[in-house]
């Protein structure tokens, strides 16, 4: 293609000086290493202090809700991976659960246990990634390398299960596609035995680190009212004094059978959020230990089913499809035409690593959802920057964005 003169104006709009109040407008992003994706922030500055912040999102907008309206339910599953791509199984799960509730499916117990394992591994992966990147933004390179090392073990386990490292699609509507591989439990146990020491290592590096404390303590304080009003959920809300964890309060899967506690803090600053994340990793590890026992019990009780039995909505097991004519017909219809859930509406919230991940589905009885709205926690965790940043200084922006743990696949959808 020949060179054509373009009409883009030079980027002097980055900086404007106003003689009256000496306010400087600084354009932060959309390509900024510590913006964790495509976040553009317009910061109005007085000296180094921010007086007004205006987050601009949408650089990763792919129109997933529109896509969902134009494909069958099972087809949409891989697209959900691309929301919170740091912990994609939790997105798969939220969608699968919403459809299951709409249809009214009972998921077999072994599938539930495997789902919980995947969800908690995803939570650990997401939290480790959060710790690594936030520490790197603040300047702690060692923690970044350590945390990525541990995350790698988890990625290997997941890769062994579903073949993918980031975009898992490991959960299906009605259950899970596969049983866990033979080495899964041994690998997971191996990791869990090492993991407490790893967390301790991170804490030794960060907890009393002077630089870390200066960047984290009393920075980015979110009051309880503000967190509730802005729709904050997950660690953001728990660090602001509300011990609300959907796994505990509205238990799904088998979360009512496992023992874990909900860490929270009433400080609301960056450091509180950091502590909540660290404690949550310990709790996740605790849950994972218990799921291993639960899995072994399903082996003893010989509960081998992995997908719900509902011929109208879910394909039969592979063996049936290959041996029984009627199952093959059902399977063919479900793959080509898709399931048709009943007419109705459902909103299901699950606790993703970032917060409340909700799926609202309006079904008109067709093979495509009539309207699908994804409630992504990061959307509001980005919005809160409007109110949170004013009063802070430029370096605080980086640490605050870090601890809000926003992922732009989820914000823009």
């Amino acid at each position, binding site marked *: 293609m020949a060179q054509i003169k373009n009409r883009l104006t030079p980027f002097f709009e980055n900086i404007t000086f106003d003689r009256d109040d000496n306010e400087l407008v600084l354009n932060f992003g959309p390509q900024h290493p510590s913006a964790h994706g495509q976040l553009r922030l317009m910061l109005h500055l007085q000296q180094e202090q921010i007086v007004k912040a205006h987050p601009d999102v949408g650089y990763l907008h792919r129109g997933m809700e529109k896509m969902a309206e134009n494909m*069958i339910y099972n087809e949409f599953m891989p697209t959900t991976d691309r929301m919170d791509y740091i912990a994609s199984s939790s997105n798969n799960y939220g969608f699968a659960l919403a459809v299951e509730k709409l249809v009214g499916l009972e998921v077999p117990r072994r599938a539930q246990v495997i789902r919980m394992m995947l969800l908690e591994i995803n939570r650990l992966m997401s939290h480790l990634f959060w710790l690594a990147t936030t520490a790197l933004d603040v300047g702690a390179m060692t923690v970044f390398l350590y945390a990525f090392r541990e995350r790698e073990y988890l990625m290997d386990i997941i890769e062994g299960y579903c073949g993918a490292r980031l975009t898992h699609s490991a959960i299906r509507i009605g259950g899970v596609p596969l049983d866990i591989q033979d080495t899964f439990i041994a690998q997971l146990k191996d990791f869990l035995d090492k993991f407490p020491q790893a967390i301790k290592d991170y804490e030794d590096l960060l907890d009393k680190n002077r630089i870390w404390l200066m960047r984290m303590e009393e920075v980015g304080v979110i009051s309880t009212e503000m967190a509730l009003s*802005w729709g904050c959920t997950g660690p953001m809300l728990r660090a602001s004094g509300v011990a609300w964890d959907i796994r505990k309060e509205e238990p799904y899967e088998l979360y009512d059978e496992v023992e874990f506690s909900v860490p929270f803090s009433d400080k609301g600053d960056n450091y509180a959020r950091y502590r909540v994340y660290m404690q949550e990793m310990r709790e996740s590890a605790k849950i994972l230990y218990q799921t291993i026992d639960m899995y072994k019990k399903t082996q003893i009780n010989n509960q081998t089913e992995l997908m719900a039995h509902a011929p109208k909505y879910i394909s039969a097991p592979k063996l049936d499809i290959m041996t029984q004519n009627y199952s093959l017909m059902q399977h063919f219809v479900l793959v080509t035409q898709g399931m*048709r859930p009943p007419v109705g509406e459902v*909103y299901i919230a699950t606790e993703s690593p970032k917060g409340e991940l909700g799926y609202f589905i309006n079904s008109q*009885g067709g093979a495509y959802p009539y309207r699908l709205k994804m409630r992504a926690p990061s959307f509001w965790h980005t919005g809160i920057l409007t109110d949170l940043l004013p009063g802070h200084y430029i370096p605080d922006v980086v640490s605050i964005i870090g601890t809000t743990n926003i992922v732009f696949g989820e914000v823009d959808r």
Partner: protein
Amino acid sequence: MRAYKGKGDVQAKPYYTDRYWVAPRVPKFDVESDEVFSKDLEVIKSKFDVLEAFIQVEQMTVFINPDDNYKVLQLLKDELDYTQLSEMSAIDFIETRDGFEIFYQMLSMNKRKRIRIKMFIKNGAAINSVEKLFRSADWSEREVFDMFGIEANGHPFMKRILMPYDWQGYPLLKTYPLQGDEFAAWYEVDKIYGKEAREEIGPEIRDTATVDRYDSDRFARLGYEVPIGVKITGNEPKNTQNYQEEGGVFLIRKLDKDSSKVIDDPQR
């Protein structure tokens, strides 16, 4: 005669349809079946018109008049302990009912209950902003405006949020074409180079299987490479240059160019 196709909904339609299919319904339960919800509903009913109320999948849905939305949400927040607005958005019913359903998804943490407040507005009508009650509505209402074109009265910054500010059309409407309209197709070209450059640049290639054998910039001329800037004649000699180390790499077999077969057909 061809079947009539409505223009209000241009979304993809399933190929297989069963005209005698009667879709089942997700069961709706009476609000009286739940103690907490029935009390809440009584409080709402004492002050506002409730058009319809039922429980579906463990959550209560309440239909109200669109003018009452601010006051109902205020009542829910201040008196009934629904402290969080988890989500709000719209559903497009333009084709069937000429309007939208707006829903507000509320959460009460103390009661562990979720309520969905819904209202129906006519196409073209605006809603009252609830941004003063819940800051989270600030961004949700902008998103609703961005995606459906429904404005919120009293919102401090009613601008698009996900799409560019100068975008035309509202993507989540059922009338919005799936491939985008002409404006969408030429958005970048028009903005960066101007409309007159459309012909020179050409439409975006959306077929992922397309291979342009004579595009030297994109490395598609495998075996017939041409330096950048040199005019392509189309009868360059085949380049037999070897890109692999002598002796090959562990596990990787050496590619024998002469005996390899290049598949030209993009459809395979």
